[in-house]
């Protein structure tokens, strides 16, 4: 009996120090510097894959003024309130979060389309992410392109970072710059996106190794440039929810690695038609 009482006291202490001061969730910012490399698609797909694992996920579109994440998720018709409404205390966080019906574990906080990035108060943004971390296992923040105010606000509440980079000179250069601007403790990890394995094989595209010889980041995943991603985005359905899709599987493994599983990075296969195409391709 005495032993039991003792254990309970210790537990109560633990509750006070962990739950009240340390939110349970982890906040990750998805960034790249360069625009159009697939940050939003990555956020949506990794988020959906984490939710499919039974974890609660909040997606925050930090691209104020250029709202996109709702479109990629097919939730655009349900956006009523947005990030700035919450930051300015016009609505409650609960009212602004949109629960995804296909992924009930996942909620979206949409960006404001009619406001500007400078309207965001950095300190309020940090507190908001902290609140979300208290409610969700994962908070994914979709960072706007650029390295100005929008970038700083997207990064402020995050504890780790994902760099999305395509195998192009411009994207690698911008990723390199962004890594230099991120606070060191964010320990960025790399997703090489839109890889075309048949072009790499023919020496017409930078390989994952080429990209990471420059960036030198822990590799979180490799996602191929496949038409099915375009189709899924057209429909507003994350490809990571399609069990038959190879690209979806790449996103699911990224989610697994985020959860601490050690699974080898699978390399996208070269399809028959892609090989056929490169035989007759130029340089």
């Amino acid at each position, binding site marked *: 009996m005495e032993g039991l009482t003792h254990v309970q006291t210790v537990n109560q202490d633990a509750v006070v120090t962990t739950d009240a001061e340390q939110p349970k969730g982890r906040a990750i910012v998805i960034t790249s510097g360069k625009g159009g490399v697939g940050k939003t698609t990555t956020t949506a797909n990794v988020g959906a894959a984490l939710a499919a694992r039974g974890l609660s996920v909040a997606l925050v579109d930090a691209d104020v003024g250029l709202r996109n994440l709702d479109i990629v998720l097919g939730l655009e018709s349900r956006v009523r309130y947005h990030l700035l409404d919450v930051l300015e205390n016009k609505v409650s966080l609960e009212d602004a979060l949109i629960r995804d019906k296909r992924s009930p574990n996942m909620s979206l906080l949409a960006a404001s389309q009619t406001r500007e990035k400078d309207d965001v108060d950095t300190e309020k943004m940090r507190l908001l992410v902290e609140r979300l971390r208290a409610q969700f296992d994962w908070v994914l923040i979709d960072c706007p392109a650029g390295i100005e105010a929008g970038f700083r606000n997207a990064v402020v509440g995050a504890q780790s970072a994902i760099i999305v980079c395509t195998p192009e000179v411009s994207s*690698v250069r911008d990723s390199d*710059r962004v890594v230099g601007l991120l606070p060191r403790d964010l320990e960025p990890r790399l997703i090489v996106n839109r890889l075309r394995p048949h072009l790499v094989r*023919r*020496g017409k*595209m930078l*390989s994952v190794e080429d990209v990471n010889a*420059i960036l030198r980041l822990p590799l979180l995943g490799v996602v191929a440039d496949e038409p099915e991603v375009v189709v899924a985005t057209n429909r507003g359905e994350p490809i990571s929810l399609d069990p038959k899709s190879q690209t979806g599987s790449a996103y699911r493994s990224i989610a697994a690695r985020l959860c601490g599983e050690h699974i080898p990075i699978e390399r996208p296969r070269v399809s028959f038609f892609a090989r056929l195409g490169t*035989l007759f391709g130029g340089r």
Partner: protein
Amino acid sequence: MFELFSRFFRREGSSTTAKERLRLVLLSDHLALAPETVEALKNDLIAVISRYVKIDPHLCDVSFEQQAATVAMHANIPILGLLADRAAAEKATIASETTPANSEHVSAQP
């Protein structure tokens, strides 16, 4: 089969060009982002050259420029005259083939 066939037609791919361009552009970026390094290098250059000839540190200029195949350092160091005490200068060690010139052009080729 495909491998064999495509290898037959293989030429050097454009990814090699991309890699080289990336290397140069990042070298330039990193230099531009480290002004204190550039300043330290400039001060060291001035110190070394002052051992041989008379220069005015305020007139010295060091800059970097990305060229087609390299990143080059330009050091424009006007020489005001010879040092009064040449003997001291000679003692200032370092076996070097430095020829005083009005403008030095050093290629920073890796």
